[in-house]
Protein backbone atom coordinates (compact mmCIF):
# COMPACT_ATOMS: atom_id res chain seq x y z
CA UNK A 1 0.00 0.00 0.00
CA UNK A 2 1.15 3.48 -0.67
CA UNK A 3 2.67 5.69 1.97
CA UNK A 4 -0.14 8.16 1.74
CA UNK A 5 -2.56 5.50 2.92
CA UNK A 6 -0.49 4.37 5.86
CA UNK A 7 -0.91 7.73 7.51
CA UNK A 8 -4.63 7.48 7.16
CA UNK A 9 -6.17 7.78 10.59
CA UNK A 10 -9.31 5.90 9.61
CA UNK A 11 -7.32 2.78 8.79
CA UNK A 12 -7.21 1.69 12.41
CA UNK A 13 -10.57 2.60 13.75
CA UNK A 14 -11.95 0.17 16.26
CA UNK A 15 -14.05 -2.65 14.93
CA UNK A 16 -17.13 -3.91 16.73
CA UNK A 17 -18.05 -6.81 14.55
CA UNK A 18 -20.78 -8.13 16.81
CA UNK A 19 -22.76 -4.98 16.06
CA UNK A 20 -22.75 -5.96 12.42
CA UNK A 21 -24.34 -9.34 12.80
CA UNK A 22 -27.82 -9.06 11.38
CA UNK A 23 -30.74 -10.25 13.43
CA UNK A 24 -32.70 -13.33 12.56
CA UNK A 25 -34.77 -11.44 10.01
CA UNK A 26 -33.60 -12.37 6.56
CA UNK A 27 -35.17 -10.40 3.74
CA UNK A 28 -36.70 -12.32 0.86
CA UNK A 29 -34.47 -12.28 -2.21
CA UNK A 30 -35.25 -9.31 -4.46
CA UNK A 31 -37.53 -9.77 -7.46
CA UNK A 32 -36.18 -9.33 -10.96
CA UNK A 33 -37.24 -5.70 -11.19
CA UNK A 34 -35.67 -4.74 -7.86
CA UNK A 35 -32.33 -6.36 -8.66
CA UNK A 36 -32.32 -4.87 -12.17
CA UNK A 37 -32.90 -1.41 -10.70
CA UNK A 38 -30.09 -1.95 -8.18
CA UNK A 39 -27.69 -2.83 -11.01
CA UNK A 40 -28.90 0.12 -13.08
CA UNK A 41 -28.19 2.35 -10.08
CA UNK A 42 -24.70 0.92 -9.89
CA UNK A 43 -24.12 1.79 -13.56
CA UNK A 44 -25.29 5.36 -12.92
CA UNK A 45 -22.95 5.65 -9.94
CA UNK A 46 -20.11 4.42 -12.11
CA UNK A 47 -20.81 7.24 -14.57
CA UNK A 48 -20.69 9.66 -11.66
CA UNK A 49 -17.35 8.33 -10.41
CA UNK A 50 -15.73 7.58 -13.77
CA UNK A 51 -17.02 10.35 -16.03
CA UNK A 52 -14.27 9.65 -18.58
CA UNK A 53 -16.34 6.71 -19.75
CA UNK A 54 -18.73 9.27 -21.26
CA UNK A 55 -16.12 10.40 -23.81
CA UNK A 56 -17.23 7.67 -26.16
CA UNK A 57 -20.80 8.94 -26.22
CA UNK A 58 -19.97 12.64 -26.33
CA UNK A 59 -16.69 13.19 -28.17
CA UNK A 60 -16.96 10.30 -30.65
CA UNK A 61 -20.19 11.54 -32.21
CA UNK A 62 -18.87 15.08 -32.55
CA UNK A 63 -15.57 14.02 -34.09
CA UNK A 64 -17.14 11.46 -36.40
CA UNK A 65 -19.77 13.82 -37.69
CA UNK A 66 -17.38 16.71 -38.36
CA UNK A 67 -14.75 14.46 -39.83
CA UNK A 68 -16.92 12.56 -42.27
CA UNK A 69 -19.07 15.52 -43.28
CA UNK A 70 -16.17 17.74 -44.25
CA UNK A 71 -13.76 15.04 -45.41
CA UNK A 72 -16.11 13.10 -47.67
CA UNK A 73 -18.98 15.52 -48.31
CA UNK A 74 -17.40 17.26 -51.27
CA UNK A 75 -16.01 14.12 -52.81
CA UNK A 76 -19.02 11.86 -52.44
CA UNK A 77 -22.06 14.10 -52.78
CA UNK A 78 -20.66 17.26 -54.33
CA UNK A 79 -21.44 19.39 -51.29
CA UNK A 80 -21.26 18.98 -47.56
CA UNK A 81 -24.79 20.26 -47.04
CA UNK A 82 -26.35 17.64 -49.27
CA UNK A 83 -24.14 14.87 -47.96
CA UNK A 84 -25.15 15.69 -44.40
CA UNK A 85 -28.77 14.95 -45.27
CA UNK A 86 -27.70 11.50 -46.41
CA UNK A 87 -24.92 10.90 -43.95
CA UNK A 88 -26.31 11.94 -40.58
CA UNK A 89 -28.81 9.11 -40.07
CA UNK A 90 -26.19 6.60 -41.17
CA UNK A 91 -23.33 7.92 -39.13
CA UNK A 92 -25.62 8.08 -36.09
CA UNK A 93 -26.27 4.38 -36.59
CA UNK A 94 -22.56 3.70 -36.98
CA UNK A 95 -21.53 5.67 -33.91
CA UNK A 96 -24.09 4.11 -31.59
CA UNK A 97 -23.36 0.61 -32.91
CA UNK A 98 -19.69 1.11 -32.22
CA UNK A 99 -20.15 2.29 -28.66
CA UNK A 100 -22.23 -0.77 -27.83
CA UNK A 101 -18.96 -2.66 -27.50
CA UNK A 102 -18.15 -0.84 -24.27
CA UNK A 103 -20.86 -2.85 -22.57
CA UNK A 104 -18.74 -5.94 -23.12
CA UNK A 105 -15.63 -4.19 -21.87
CA UNK A 106 -17.32 -3.22 -18.59
CA UNK A 107 -18.43 -6.80 -18.06
CA UNK A 108 -14.98 -8.10 -18.92
CA UNK A 109 -13.51 -5.81 -16.25
CA UNK A 110 -16.02 -7.02 -13.68
CA UNK A 111 -15.01 -10.60 -14.37
CA UNK A 112 -11.31 -9.97 -13.98
CA UNK A 113 -11.98 -8.23 -10.70
CA UNK A 114 -13.71 -10.18 -7.96
CA UNK A 115 -17.13 -8.55 -8.06
CA UNK A 116 -18.40 -10.91 -10.76
CA UNK A 117 -17.97 -13.80 -8.32
CA UNK A 118 -19.92 -11.99 -5.66
CA UNK A 119 -22.82 -11.28 -8.01
CA UNK A 120 -22.91 -14.91 -9.01
CA UNK A 121 -23.22 -16.10 -5.42
CA UNK A 122 -26.15 -13.78 -4.70
CA UNK A 123 -29.69 -15.19 -4.66
CA UNK A 124 -30.84 -12.98 -7.53
CA UNK A 125 -32.23 -13.29 -11.04
CA UNK A 126 -28.82 -13.36 -12.66
CA UNK A 127 -29.60 -11.61 -15.97
CA UNK A 128 -30.50 -8.50 -13.97
CA UNK A 129 -26.77 -7.81 -13.60
CA UNK A 130 -26.56 -7.35 -17.36
CA UNK A 131 -30.01 -5.97 -18.05
CA UNK A 132 -29.51 -3.24 -15.44
CA UNK A 133 -26.25 -2.20 -17.05
CA UNK A 134 -27.74 -2.34 -20.55
CA UNK A 135 -30.63 -0.10 -19.49
CA UNK A 136 -28.20 2.57 -18.41
CA UNK A 137 -26.33 2.08 -21.66
CA UNK A 138 -29.57 2.98 -23.41
CA UNK A 139 -29.33 6.32 -21.64
CA UNK A 140 -25.79 6.67 -22.96
CA UNK A 141 -26.90 5.87 -26.48
CA UNK A 142 -29.70 8.45 -26.17
CA UNK A 143 -27.16 11.04 -25.11
CA UNK A 144 -24.90 10.22 -28.04
CA UNK A 145 -27.88 10.49 -30.39
CA UNK A 146 -28.96 13.83 -28.93
CA UNK A 147 -25.47 15.27 -29.28
CA UNK A 148 -25.08 14.09 -32.81
CA UNK A 149 -28.50 15.24 -33.97
CA UNK A 150 -28.06 18.57 -32.19
CA UNK A 151 -24.74 19.19 -33.89
CA UNK A 152 -26.21 18.04 -37.21
CA UNK A 153 -29.00 20.60 -36.92
CA UNK A 154 -26.44 23.32 -36.32
CA UNK A 155 -24.47 22.20 -39.38
CA UNK A 156 -27.56 22.34 -41.57
CA UNK A 157 -29.22 18.93 -41.26
CA UNK A 158 -32.96 19.29 -41.94
CA UNK A 159 -34.95 16.11 -41.21
CA UNK A 160 -38.12 16.12 -43.26
CA UNK A 161 -39.72 13.62 -40.91
CA UNK A 162 -39.92 16.32 -38.24
CA UNK A 163 -39.65 15.83 -34.51
CA UNK A 164 -41.71 12.65 -34.51
CA UNK A 165 -39.63 11.17 -37.30
CA UNK A 166 -36.38 11.89 -35.46
CA UNK A 167 -37.71 10.53 -32.16
CA UNK A 168 -38.94 7.42 -33.92
CA UNK A 169 -35.55 6.98 -35.53
CA UNK A 170 -33.78 7.25 -32.15
CA UNK A 171 -36.17 4.70 -30.64
CA UNK A 172 -35.36 2.25 -33.43
CA UNK A 173 -31.63 2.82 -32.84
CA UNK A 174 -32.04 2.22 -29.10
CA UNK A 175 -33.93 -1.03 -29.70
CA UNK A 176 -31.25 -2.23 -32.09
CA UNK A 177 -28.34 -1.19 -29.84
CA UNK A 178 -29.81 -2.86 -26.75
CA UNK A 179 -30.14 -6.07 -28.78
CA UNK A 180 -26.76 -5.73 -30.47
CA UNK A 181 -25.05 -5.26 -27.06
CA UNK A 182 -25.70 -8.88 -26.16
CA UNK A 183 -23.03 -9.88 -28.68
CA UNK A 184 -20.51 -7.90 -26.66
CA UNK A 185 -21.63 -9.27 -23.32
CA UNK A 186 -21.09 -12.78 -24.66
CA UNK A 187 -17.71 -11.78 -26.11
CA UNK A 188 -16.85 -9.97 -22.87
CA UNK A 189 -17.23 -13.21 -20.95
CA UNK A 190 -15.26 -15.31 -23.42
CA UNK A 191 -12.30 -13.01 -24.01
CA UNK A 192 -9.49 -13.13 -21.49
CA UNK A 193 -8.45 -9.52 -21.55
CA UNK A 194 -9.79 -6.13 -22.36
CA UNK A 195 -7.21 -5.87 -25.11
CA UNK A 196 -8.26 -9.01 -26.94
CA UNK A 197 -11.89 -8.06 -26.54
CA UNK A 198 -11.24 -4.65 -28.09
CA UNK A 199 -9.48 -6.27 -30.99
CA UNK A 200 -12.29 -8.70 -31.69
CA UNK A 201 -14.86 -5.94 -31.36
CA UNK A 202 -13.08 -3.77 -33.89
CA UNK A 203 -12.72 -6.71 -36.24
CA UNK A 204 -16.48 -7.16 -36.17
CA UNK A 205 -17.69 -3.59 -35.91
CA UNK A 206 -15.50 -1.88 -38.50
CA UNK A 207 -16.34 -4.10 -41.48
CA UNK A 208 -20.00 -4.13 -40.42
CA UNK A 209 -20.29 -0.37 -40.17
CA UNK A 210 -18.14 0.59 -43.15
CA UNK A 211 -19.30 -2.10 -45.56
CA UNK A 212 -22.86 -0.87 -45.31
CA UNK A 213 -25.00 1.84 -46.81
CA UNK A 214 -23.90 4.32 -44.14
CA UNK A 215 -21.47 6.27 -46.34
CA UNK A 216 -22.42 5.47 -49.89
CA UNK A 217 -25.37 4.38 -51.95
CA UNK A 218 -24.95 0.59 -52.44
CA UNK A 219 -25.90 0.86 -56.12
CA UNK A 220 -22.40 2.22 -56.76
CA UNK A 221 -20.85 -0.99 -55.42
CA UNK A 222 -19.91 -4.18 -57.29
CA UNK A 223 -22.78 -6.63 -57.20
CA UNK A 224 -21.11 -9.24 -54.95
CA UNK A 225 -20.55 -6.53 -52.35
CA UNK A 226 -24.08 -5.21 -52.75
CA UNK A 227 -25.37 -8.61 -51.63
CA UNK A 228 -23.54 -8.33 -48.32
CA UNK A 229 -24.36 -4.67 -47.82
CA UNK A 230 -28.06 -5.32 -48.27
CA UNK A 231 -28.28 -8.01 -45.59
CA UNK A 232 -25.87 -6.23 -43.23
CA UNK A 233 -27.85 -5.45 -40.05
CA UNK A 234 -26.26 -2.02 -39.95
CA UNK A 235 -27.64 -1.27 -43.43
CA UNK A 236 -31.07 -2.50 -42.42
CA UNK A 237 -31.01 -0.18 -39.41
CA UNK A 238 -29.59 2.75 -41.38
CA UNK A 239 -32.31 2.38 -44.02
CA UNK A 240 -35.06 2.46 -41.41
CA UNK A 241 -33.49 5.41 -39.57
CA UNK A 242 -33.05 7.36 -42.79
CA UNK A 243 -36.64 6.67 -43.75
CA UNK A 244 -37.99 7.83 -40.41
CA UNK A 245 -35.86 10.98 -40.30
CA UNK A 246 -36.72 11.99 -43.82
CA UNK A 247 -40.38 11.14 -43.55
CA UNK A 248 -40.45 8.42 -46.19
CA UNK A 249 -39.98 5.38 -43.98
CA UNK A 250 -42.05 2.23 -44.30
CA UNK A 251 -43.33 -0.21 -41.71
CA UNK A 252 -41.48 -2.88 -43.58
CA UNK A 253 -38.13 -1.16 -42.93
CA UNK A 254 -38.94 -0.88 -39.24
CA UNK A 255 -40.19 -4.44 -39.19
CA UNK A 256 -36.83 -5.69 -40.44
CA UNK A 257 -35.00 -3.86 -37.64
CA UNK A 258 -37.32 -5.51 -35.13
CA UNK A 259 -36.65 -8.91 -36.69
CA UNK A 260 -32.88 -8.42 -36.69
CA UNK A 261 -32.95 -7.16 -33.09
CA UNK A 262 -35.04 -10.12 -32.00
CA UNK A 263 -32.56 -12.49 -33.64
CA UNK A 264 -29.67 -10.91 -31.73
CA UNK A 265 -31.49 -11.17 -28.42
CA UNK A 266 -32.75 -14.70 -28.98
CA UNK A 267 -29.29 -15.97 -29.82
CA UNK A 268 -26.94 -13.89 -27.72
CA UNK A 269 -28.89 -13.22 -24.51
CA UNK A 270 -29.26 -16.93 -23.64
CA UNK A 271 -25.69 -17.55 -24.83
CA UNK A 272 -24.44 -14.74 -22.59
CA UNK A 273 -26.31 -16.09 -19.59
CA UNK A 274 -25.08 -19.61 -20.27
CA UNK A 275 -21.50 -18.36 -20.38
CA UNK A 276 -22.08 -16.13 -17.36
CA UNK A 277 -23.20 -19.07 -15.25
CA UNK A 278 -20.47 -21.38 -16.50
CA UNK A 279 -17.55 -18.96 -16.43
CA UNK A 280 -14.61 -20.40 -14.51
Amino acid sequence: MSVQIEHDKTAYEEVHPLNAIAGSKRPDPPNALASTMAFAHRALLRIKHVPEQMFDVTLFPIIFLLMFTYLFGGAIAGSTGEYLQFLLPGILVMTVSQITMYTGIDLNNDIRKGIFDRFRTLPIWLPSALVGALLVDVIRYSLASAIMIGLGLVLGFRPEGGVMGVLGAVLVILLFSFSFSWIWTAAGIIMRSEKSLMMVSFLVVFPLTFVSNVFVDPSTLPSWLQGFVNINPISILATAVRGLMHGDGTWEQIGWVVVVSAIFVVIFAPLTMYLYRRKE
Partner: protein
Amino acid sequence: METRNGERQANGLAVEAAGLVKVYGKERAVDGVDLVIPKGTVYGFLGPNGAGKTTTIRMLATLIQPDSGSATIFGHDLKTESAAIKSRISLTGQYASIDEDLTGIENLVLISRLMGYTVKEAKLRAAELLSAFGLENAAKRQVKKYSGGMRRRIDIAASIVVTPDLLFLDEPTTGLDPRSRNQVWEIVRALVQTGTTVLLTTQNLEEADQLADRIAVINQGKIIAEGTSSELKASVGTGTLNVQLLDSADQAQATAILEHKLNVAVHVSTDGLTLSAPAKDSSIVAEALGELGKEKIGISDFALGRPSLDEVFLTLTGQSASDQPIEEENS
Protein backbone atom coordinates in the same frame (compact mmCIF):
# COMPACT_ATOMS: atom_id res chain seq x y z
CA MET B 1 -27.33 -20.80 19.40
CA GLU B 2 -30.15 -19.78 17.15
CA THR B 3 -30.42 -21.11 13.68
CA ARG B 4 -31.21 -18.45 11.18
CA ASN B 5 -32.62 -20.94 8.77
CA GLY B 6 -34.47 -23.81 10.30
CA GLU B 7 -34.86 -26.28 7.47
CA ARG B 8 -32.76 -29.36 6.87
CA GLN B 9 -30.36 -29.00 9.76
CA ALA B 10 -30.72 -32.66 10.62
CA ASN B 11 -27.16 -33.96 10.32
CA GLY B 12 -25.49 -30.88 11.78
CA LEU B 13 -23.08 -30.54 8.91
CA ALA B 14 -22.41 -27.36 6.99
CA VAL B 15 -20.38 -29.06 4.28
CA GLU B 16 -20.05 -32.65 3.25
CA ALA B 17 -17.99 -33.41 0.15
CA ALA B 18 -16.75 -36.63 -1.39
CA GLY B 19 -14.16 -37.03 -4.10
CA LEU B 20 -14.26 -33.50 -5.51
CA VAL B 21 -12.16 -33.23 -8.65
CA LYS B 22 -11.45 -30.26 -10.89
CA VAL B 23 -9.13 -30.62 -13.85
CA TYR B 24 -7.69 -27.75 -15.89
CA GLY B 25 -6.00 -29.12 -18.97
CA LYS B 26 -3.49 -31.64 -17.67
CA GLU B 27 -3.38 -30.25 -14.19
CA ARG B 28 -5.59 -31.79 -11.55
CA ALA B 29 -6.19 -28.60 -9.59
CA VAL B 30 -8.35 -30.46 -7.09
CA ASP B 31 -7.77 -34.16 -6.97
CA GLY B 32 -10.27 -36.02 -4.84
CA VAL B 33 -11.09 -33.83 -1.87
CA ASP B 34 -13.32 -35.18 0.91
CA LEU B 35 -14.63 -32.81 3.54
CA VAL B 36 -16.82 -32.95 6.59
CA ILE B 37 -17.40 -29.59 8.22
CA PRO B 38 -19.70 -29.39 11.23
CA LYS B 39 -21.92 -26.34 11.59
CA GLY B 40 -20.73 -23.43 13.67
CA THR B 41 -17.04 -24.23 13.33
CA VAL B 42 -14.11 -22.63 11.58
CA TYR B 43 -12.46 -24.88 9.06
CA GLY B 44 -9.06 -23.94 7.69
CA PHE B 45 -7.56 -24.87 4.35
CA LEU B 46 -3.85 -24.62 4.70
CA GLY B 47 -1.57 -24.87 1.73
CA PRO B 48 0.86 -23.11 -0.56
CA ASN B 49 -0.08 -21.13 -3.66
CA GLY B 50 -1.65 -23.30 -6.31
CA ALA B 51 -2.48 -26.12 -3.90
CA GLY B 52 -6.14 -26.13 -4.91
CA LYS B 53 -7.59 -24.15 -2.00
CA THR B 54 -9.31 -21.49 -4.06
CA THR B 55 -10.60 -23.96 -6.64
CA THR B 56 -12.17 -26.06 -3.88
CA ILE B 57 -13.84 -23.02 -2.36
CA ARG B 58 -15.13 -21.88 -5.74
CA MET B 59 -16.70 -25.28 -6.30
CA LEU B 60 -18.36 -25.27 -2.89
CA ALA B 61 -19.62 -21.71 -3.48
CA THR B 62 -21.37 -22.85 -6.71
CA LEU B 63 -19.07 -20.74 -8.90
CA ILE B 64 -17.55 -23.61 -10.81
CA GLN B 65 -18.76 -27.15 -11.30
CA PRO B 66 -16.71 -30.11 -10.14
CA ASP B 67 -15.63 -32.53 -12.87
CA SER B 68 -16.48 -35.36 -10.54
CA GLY B 69 -17.42 -35.97 -6.95
CA SER B 70 -20.33 -34.61 -5.00
CA ALA B 71 -21.04 -32.25 -2.15
CA THR B 72 -23.87 -30.99 -0.05
CA ILE B 73 -24.08 -27.64 1.71
CA PHE B 74 -26.49 -27.76 4.67
CA GLY B 75 -27.91 -30.86 3.05
CA HIS B 76 -28.50 -29.16 -0.32
CA ASP B 77 -26.95 -30.86 -3.29
CA LEU B 78 -24.31 -28.74 -4.98
CA LYS B 79 -25.33 -29.72 -8.49
CA THR B 80 -29.10 -29.53 -8.28
CA GLU B 81 -29.88 -27.05 -5.51
CA SER B 82 -27.52 -24.16 -6.13
CA ALA B 83 -30.28 -21.58 -5.60
CA ALA B 84 -30.96 -22.89 -2.09
CA ILE B 85 -27.24 -22.91 -1.39
CA LYS B 86 -26.75 -19.35 -2.61
CA SER B 87 -29.25 -18.04 -0.10
CA ARG B 88 -27.21 -19.51 2.76
CA ILE B 89 -23.63 -18.74 1.75
CA SER B 90 -21.41 -15.78 1.13
CA LEU B 91 -18.00 -15.48 -0.47
CA THR B 92 -15.16 -13.08 0.09
CA GLY B 93 -12.75 -13.76 -2.71
CA GLN B 94 -9.03 -13.35 -2.77
CA TYR B 95 -9.39 -10.14 -4.75
CA ALA B 96 -11.75 -7.41 -3.65
CA SER B 97 -15.25 -8.59 -4.51
CA ILE B 98 -16.63 -5.08 -4.65
CA ASP B 99 -16.73 -2.21 -7.09
CA GLU B 100 -13.61 -0.20 -6.41
CA ASP B 101 -14.88 2.84 -8.28
CA LEU B 102 -17.85 3.16 -5.95
CA THR B 103 -17.66 4.47 -2.40
CA GLY B 104 -17.86 2.20 0.62
CA ILE B 105 -21.45 3.06 1.39
CA GLU B 106 -22.53 2.78 -2.25
CA ASN B 107 -21.11 -0.73 -2.39
CA LEU B 108 -22.87 -1.84 0.77
CA VAL B 109 -26.17 -0.28 -0.30
CA LEU B 110 -25.88 -2.08 -3.64
CA ILE B 111 -25.24 -5.46 -2.04
CA SER B 112 -27.98 -4.85 0.54
CA ARG B 113 -30.48 -4.11 -2.21
CA LEU B 114 -29.38 -7.24 -4.03
CA MET B 115 -29.97 -9.24 -0.86
CA GLY B 116 -33.56 -8.03 -0.86
CA TYR B 117 -33.57 -4.96 1.36
CA THR B 118 -35.58 -1.94 0.22
CA VAL B 119 -33.55 1.16 -0.63
CA LYS B 120 -34.34 2.67 2.77
CA GLU B 121 -33.46 -0.49 4.71
CA ALA B 122 -30.33 -0.91 2.60
CA LYS B 123 -29.05 2.51 3.61
CA LEU B 124 -29.62 1.74 7.29
CA ARG B 125 -27.91 -1.62 7.01
CA ALA B 126 -24.96 -0.13 5.15
CA ALA B 127 -24.47 2.53 7.83
CA GLU B 128 -24.68 -0.10 10.56
CA LEU B 129 -22.00 -2.24 8.88
CA LEU B 130 -19.70 0.71 8.23
CA SER B 131 -19.77 1.75 11.86
CA ALA B 132 -19.30 -1.79 13.15
CA PHE B 133 -16.27 -2.22 10.91
CA GLY B 134 -14.71 1.13 11.76
CA LEU B 135 -15.27 2.54 8.28
CA GLU B 136 -17.66 5.40 9.06
CA ASN B 137 -15.16 8.07 8.12
CA ALA B 138 -14.35 6.34 4.87
CA ALA B 139 -17.99 5.76 3.91
CA LYS B 140 -18.00 8.35 1.16
CA ARG B 141 -14.60 7.55 -0.24
CA GLN B 142 -14.03 5.36 -3.29
CA VAL B 143 -12.91 1.89 -2.27
CA LYS B 144 -9.86 2.10 -4.54
CA LYS B 145 -8.53 4.73 -2.14
CA TYR B 146 -8.83 2.40 0.85
CA SER B 147 -5.86 0.77 2.54
CA GLY B 148 -5.47 -3.01 2.35
CA GLY B 149 -7.02 -3.56 5.78
CA MET B 150 -9.99 -1.28 5.09
CA ARG B 151 -10.57 -2.97 1.75
CA ARG B 152 -10.62 -6.35 3.40
CA ARG B 153 -13.09 -5.13 6.00
CA ILE B 154 -15.48 -3.59 3.49
CA ASP B 155 -15.25 -6.80 1.50
CA ILE B 156 -16.17 -8.92 4.50
CA ALA B 157 -18.88 -6.41 5.44
CA ALA B 158 -20.38 -6.92 1.98
CA SER B 159 -20.35 -10.65 2.63
CA ILE B 160 -22.32 -10.39 5.85
CA VAL B 161 -24.96 -7.87 4.81
CA VAL B 162 -27.25 -10.76 5.54
CA THR B 163 -25.37 -12.90 8.02
CA PRO B 164 -24.60 -16.05 6.04
CA ASP B 165 -24.82 -19.53 7.51
CA LEU B 166 -21.61 -20.40 5.73
CA LEU B 167 -18.95 -17.85 4.90
CA PHE B 168 -16.07 -18.58 2.53
CA LEU B 169 -13.01 -16.43 3.16
CA ASP B 170 -10.28 -16.85 0.59
CA GLU B 171 -6.97 -15.76 2.14
CA PRO B 172 -8.62 -13.08 4.24
CA THR B 173 -5.42 -11.70 5.72
CA THR B 174 -2.86 -12.14 2.95
CA GLY B 175 -0.90 -8.92 2.63
CA LEU B 176 -2.31 -7.29 5.75
CA ASP B 177 -0.27 -5.78 8.54
CA PRO B 178 -0.59 -7.42 11.98
CA ARG B 179 -3.15 -4.98 13.32
CA SER B 180 -5.43 -5.25 10.30
CA ARG B 181 -5.03 -9.00 10.48
CA ASN B 182 -6.14 -9.02 14.11
CA GLN B 183 -9.20 -7.00 13.16
CA VAL B 184 -10.14 -9.60 10.56
CA TRP B 185 -9.64 -12.36 13.12
CA GLU B 186 -11.88 -10.48 15.52
CA ILE B 187 -14.58 -10.33 12.86
CA VAL B 188 -14.29 -14.05 12.11
CA ARG B 189 -14.56 -14.93 15.80
CA ALA B 190 -17.62 -12.71 16.21
CA LEU B 191 -19.32 -14.40 13.29
CA VAL B 192 -18.64 -17.87 14.61
CA GLN B 193 -19.91 -16.82 18.01
CA THR B 194 -23.31 -16.14 16.45
CA GLY B 195 -23.47 -19.45 14.63
CA THR B 196 -21.90 -18.85 11.23
CA THR B 197 -19.71 -21.60 9.83
CA VAL B 198 -16.50 -20.25 8.33
CA LEU B 199 -14.36 -21.94 5.73
CA LEU B 200 -11.15 -20.03 5.24
CA THR B 201 -8.03 -20.58 3.23
CA THR B 202 -4.66 -19.42 4.37
CA GLN B 203 -0.98 -19.82 3.73
CA ASN B 204 -0.37 -18.61 7.22
CA LEU B 205 0.09 -21.37 9.76
CA GLU B 206 -0.41 -19.12 12.73
CA GLU B 207 -3.72 -18.03 11.31
CA ALA B 208 -4.96 -21.59 10.93
CA ASP B 209 -3.73 -22.36 14.43
CA GLN B 210 -5.43 -19.27 15.88
CA LEU B 211 -8.79 -19.49 14.15
CA ALA B 212 -9.56 -22.94 12.86
CA ASP B 213 -11.22 -25.72 14.84
CA ARG B 214 -10.08 -28.16 12.22
CA ILE B 215 -7.46 -27.83 9.54
CA ALA B 216 -6.96 -29.55 6.22
CA VAL B 217 -3.48 -29.35 4.79
CA ILE B 218 -3.73 -29.23 1.00
CA ASN B 219 -0.98 -29.83 -1.47
CA GLN B 220 -1.23 -30.46 -5.20
CA GLY B 221 -4.99 -30.77 -5.08
CA LYS B 222 -5.05 -33.37 -2.31
CA ILE B 223 -5.72 -33.18 1.38
CA ILE B 224 -2.57 -34.64 2.84
CA ALA B 225 -3.58 -34.27 6.46
CA GLU B 226 -6.68 -33.32 8.36
CA GLY B 227 -7.50 -32.76 11.97
CA THR B 228 -7.38 -30.31 14.83
CA SER B 229 -4.25 -28.30 15.22
CA SER B 230 -2.98 -30.56 18.01
CA GLU B 231 -3.89 -33.74 16.14
CA LEU B 232 -1.86 -32.54 13.21
CA LYS B 233 1.06 -31.78 15.41
CA ALA B 234 0.78 -35.19 17.05
CA SER B 235 0.67 -36.92 13.68
CA VAL B 236 4.15 -35.72 12.96
CA GLY B 237 5.62 -37.24 16.09
CA THR B 238 5.77 -36.48 19.76
CA GLY B 239 7.91 -33.52 19.00
CA THR B 240 10.63 -32.00 17.00
CA LEU B 241 14.28 -31.94 17.77
CA ASN B 242 16.09 -28.73 16.91
CA VAL B 243 19.85 -28.72 17.05
CA GLN B 244 21.90 -25.58 16.67
CA LEU B 245 25.43 -26.24 15.44
CA LEU B 246 28.44 -24.12 16.30
CA ASP B 247 30.11 -24.69 12.97
CA SER B 248 28.32 -25.33 9.71
CA ALA B 249 31.28 -27.47 8.61
CA ASP B 250 29.93 -30.19 10.89
CA GLN B 251 26.56 -30.06 9.22
CA ALA B 252 26.92 -33.08 6.90
CA GLN B 253 28.27 -35.34 9.62
CA ALA B 254 25.70 -34.19 12.15
CA THR B 255 22.89 -34.71 9.68
CA ALA B 256 24.10 -38.20 8.93
CA ILE B 257 24.26 -39.10 12.64
CA LEU B 258 20.79 -37.75 13.36
CA GLU B 259 19.29 -39.43 10.34
CA HIS B 260 20.86 -42.71 11.30
CA LYS B 261 19.84 -42.57 14.95
CA LEU B 262 16.36 -41.12 14.53
CA ASN B 263 15.67 -42.90 11.27
CA VAL B 264 13.97 -39.84 9.75
CA ALA B 265 14.79 -37.11 7.25
CA VAL B 266 16.56 -34.14 8.80
CA HIS B 267 15.74 -30.64 7.67
CA VAL B 268 18.65 -28.22 7.42
CA SER B 269 18.04 -24.47 7.71
CA THR B 270 19.31 -22.18 4.98
CA ASP B 271 22.26 -20.99 7.07
CA GLY B 272 23.26 -24.62 7.57
CA LEU B 273 23.41 -24.25 11.33
CA THR B 274 20.00 -25.47 12.46
CA LEU B 275 18.99 -29.07 12.02
CA SER B 276 15.47 -30.13 12.75
CA ALA B 277 13.87 -33.52 12.66
CA PRO B 278 10.68 -35.10 13.92
CA ALA B 279 11.46 -37.07 17.05
CA LYS B 280 9.23 -39.87 18.28
CA ASP B 281 11.08 -41.00 21.37
CA SER B 282 13.04 -38.83 23.76
CA SER B 283 15.42 -41.63 24.83
CA ILE B 284 16.51 -42.05 21.21
CA VAL B 285 16.95 -38.29 21.02
CA ALA B 286 19.26 -38.45 24.04
CA GLU B 287 21.26 -41.20 22.38
CA ALA B 288 21.55 -39.20 19.17
CA LEU B 289 22.77 -36.14 21.06
CA GLY B 290 25.30 -38.30 22.90
CA GLU B 291 26.59 -39.55 19.56
CA LEU B 292 27.06 -35.96 18.38
CA GLY B 293 29.10 -35.31 21.54
CA LYS B 294 31.27 -38.38 20.95
CA GLU B 295 32.10 -37.13 17.48
CA LYS B 296 33.08 -33.77 19.00
CA ILE B 297 30.44 -31.86 17.08
CA GLY B 298 29.89 -28.55 18.82
CA ILE B 299 26.31 -27.70 19.69
CA SER B 300 25.29 -24.23 20.85
CA ASP B 301 21.71 -25.16 21.64
CA PHE B 302 19.18 -27.91 21.29
CA ALA B 303 15.49 -28.17 22.01
CA LEU B 304 12.89 -30.86 21.96
CA GLY B 305 9.41 -29.52 21.68
CA ARG B 306 5.94 -30.17 20.41
CA PRO B 307 6.06 -29.39 16.73
CA SER B 308 4.73 -26.10 15.49
CA LEU B 309 2.30 -26.07 12.65
CA ASP B 310 5.15 -24.83 10.48
CA GLU B 311 7.00 -28.04 11.13
CA VAL B 312 3.89 -30.06 10.49
CA PHE B 313 3.54 -28.35 7.19
CA LEU B 314 7.15 -28.85 6.31
CA THR B 315 7.06 -32.51 7.22
CA LEU B 316 3.90 -33.05 5.21
CA THR B 317 4.80 -31.15 2.07
CA GLY B 318 8.56 -31.51 2.19
CA GLN B 319 8.28 -35.07 1.01
CA SER B 320 6.78 -35.59 -2.39
CA ALA B 321 3.10 -35.32 -1.73
CA SER B 322 2.10 -38.65 -3.25
CA ASP B 323 4.83 -40.52 -1.41
CA GLN B 324 3.49 -41.02 2.05
CA PRO B 325 0.28 -39.16 2.50
CA ILE B 326 -0.50 -38.88 6.16
CA GLU B 327 -4.17 -39.43 6.56
CA GLU B 328 -5.58 -38.73 9.97
CA GLU B 329 -8.45 -40.79 11.26
CA ASN B 330 -10.59 -38.65 13.47
CA SER B 331 -13.54 -39.62 15.55
